[in-house]
């Protein structure tokens, strides 16, 4: 890669959202913003190797995209609307603070609750993340035309229904931030445990993109503790990725992972974030508690060193916020380590999670540890039937077949 290529790809990562966000506010149109940002970057690829790298690549891209947008509006409209005419008089870059506000507006608009979740995900990856439609399609193994349609429809709804391009009002902020974080976490999880048997079990491009976007949102909203909470949760989960799938493509359970393969740098950053949240003294939300649970796990160099009573105490805190059966299932897994499988089994029984593969996998594991092979095998069968991820299916199948041999 030449120097120019490197500068361009760095500018793309760092400035794409800035250019789109600024244009979207100035022209009140996401279509124009997206297309002209893409054209500005294409022009950079053409011009920079010849003309040299401009002193401020970000400003150059914003001004170029801005001029192209003006040209397009002039070409398409016989008369330019008054509010746009005023904007066209200046093409000097705005102070950084205003641009950050624009990026935050863009994030909130793309994650608006009036849009379907799948549209929010696609739109956020395209407009904020700068992924191309083919890249998004590849990441989710969905046809490009389908992703394109999804994005087009979302943009049309934003325009027609007048979804505002703004940071939500104070009383709406907590709920809307939760909505943004849900989009980011979904992108991360789709990368971390792909739900489709046709897909690779772990896709680091998606987890890396989710982390990058969450870092951006954290920089834009430093006051909300759940944002660094989610970032810490992602980092501490991502840190274990190298140990998560075996050479033969099988999912490796937390207890069996080679902890030397964990990424110490990500763990250190995640732990620092968790410590900072604890030091704040504010009551933690669900992402912060989940991050703390993962901090306990990643703190143990050996699974036997895990502080299970701490894990359970954190799950108790989480149950108070979110008494859902899935949280209680995960709590029961920790209970099995502290109080034994018998106690955990009593807690798992009766949870209304018949359609959830992890429920049956947990059930199967507890029965196996109690020596109840026949029942365990039946539970593994149900888990395998429901699991979508290839690495997970491979793991469950091996566990079941080991059972058959004993």
């Amino acid at each position: 890669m030449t120097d120019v290529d490197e500068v361009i790809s760095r500018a793309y990562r760092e400035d794409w959202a800035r250019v789109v966000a600024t244009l979207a506010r100035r022209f009140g149109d996401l279509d124009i913003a997206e297309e002209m940002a893409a054209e500005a970057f294409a022009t950079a690829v053409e011009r920079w190797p010849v003309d040299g790298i401009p002193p401020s690549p970000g400003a150059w891209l914003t001004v170029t995209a801005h001029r192209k947008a003006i040209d397009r509006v002039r070409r398409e409209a016989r008369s330019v609307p008054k509010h746009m005419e005023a904007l066209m008089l200046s093409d000097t870059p705005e102070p950084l603070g205003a641009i950050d506000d624009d990026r935050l507006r863009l994030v909130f608009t793309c994650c608006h609750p009036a849009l379907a979740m799948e549209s929010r995900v696609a739109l956020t990856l395209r407009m904020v993340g700068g992924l191309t439609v083919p890249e998004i399609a590849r990441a989710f193994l969905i046809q490009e035309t389908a992703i394109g349609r999804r994005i087009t429809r979302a943009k049309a709804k934003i325009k027609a229904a007048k979804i505002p391009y703004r940071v939500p009002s104070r009383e709406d902020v907590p709920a809307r931030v939760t909505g943004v974080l849900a989009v980011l976490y979904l992108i991360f999880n789709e990368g971390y445990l792909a739900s489709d048997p046709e897909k690779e079990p772990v896709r680091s491009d998606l987890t890396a993109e989710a982390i990058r976007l969450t870092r951006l949102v954290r920089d834009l909203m430093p006051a909300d503790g759940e944002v660094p909470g989610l970032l810490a949760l992602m980092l501490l989960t991502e840190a274990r990725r190298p140990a998560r799938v075996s050479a033969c493509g099988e999912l490796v359970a937390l207890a069996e992972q080679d902890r030397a393969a964990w990424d110490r740098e990500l763990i250190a950053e995640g732990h620092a974030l968790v410590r900072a949240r604890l030091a704040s003294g504010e009551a933690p939300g669900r992402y912060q508690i989940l991050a703390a649970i993962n901090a306990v796990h990643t703190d143990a160099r050996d699974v036997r060193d895990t502080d299970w009573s701490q894990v359970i105490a954190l799950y108790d805190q989480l149950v108070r916020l979110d008494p859902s059966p899935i949280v209680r299932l995960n709590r029961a897994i920790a209970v099995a380590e502290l109080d034994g499988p018998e106690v955990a089994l009593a807690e798992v029984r009766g949870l209304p999670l018949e359609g959830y593969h992890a429920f049956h996998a947990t059930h199967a594991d507890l029965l196996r540890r109690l020596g109840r092979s026949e029942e365990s095998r039946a539970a593994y069968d149900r888990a395998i039937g429901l699991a979508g991820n290839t690495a997970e299916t491979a793991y469950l199948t091996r566990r079941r077949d080991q059972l058959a041999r004993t």
Partner: protein
Amino acid sequence: MAQYLISVLDDTSDSATAEEMAAIDAFNEQLETEGHWVFAGGLASPSTATVVDGRDGEAVLTDGPYLESKEYVAGFWIIGAPHLDVALRLAALGSKSCNRRVELRPFLGA
């Protein structure tokens, strides 16, 4: 100011209780004082509808609604709002006041 249609979804008609009617009146008053009011009304049962097709000369009349469905529009509001966030807040209040689900839909180019 954009305009939005809030349709009230129901499976029976003329079914609002006295409390619901009182809550709807209060919501209507709020719409007027806050300057969002455009129009509102309740509709009679779908069985009272007539489909009229006047595209080819003499109009063809069909008794009943154009679509048989379990749920239908029992009433509506037309509101003015600067953008969707305000309209969503009003739609939520409307839904609460009439105690029914509602559909919020923008007018074209308004």
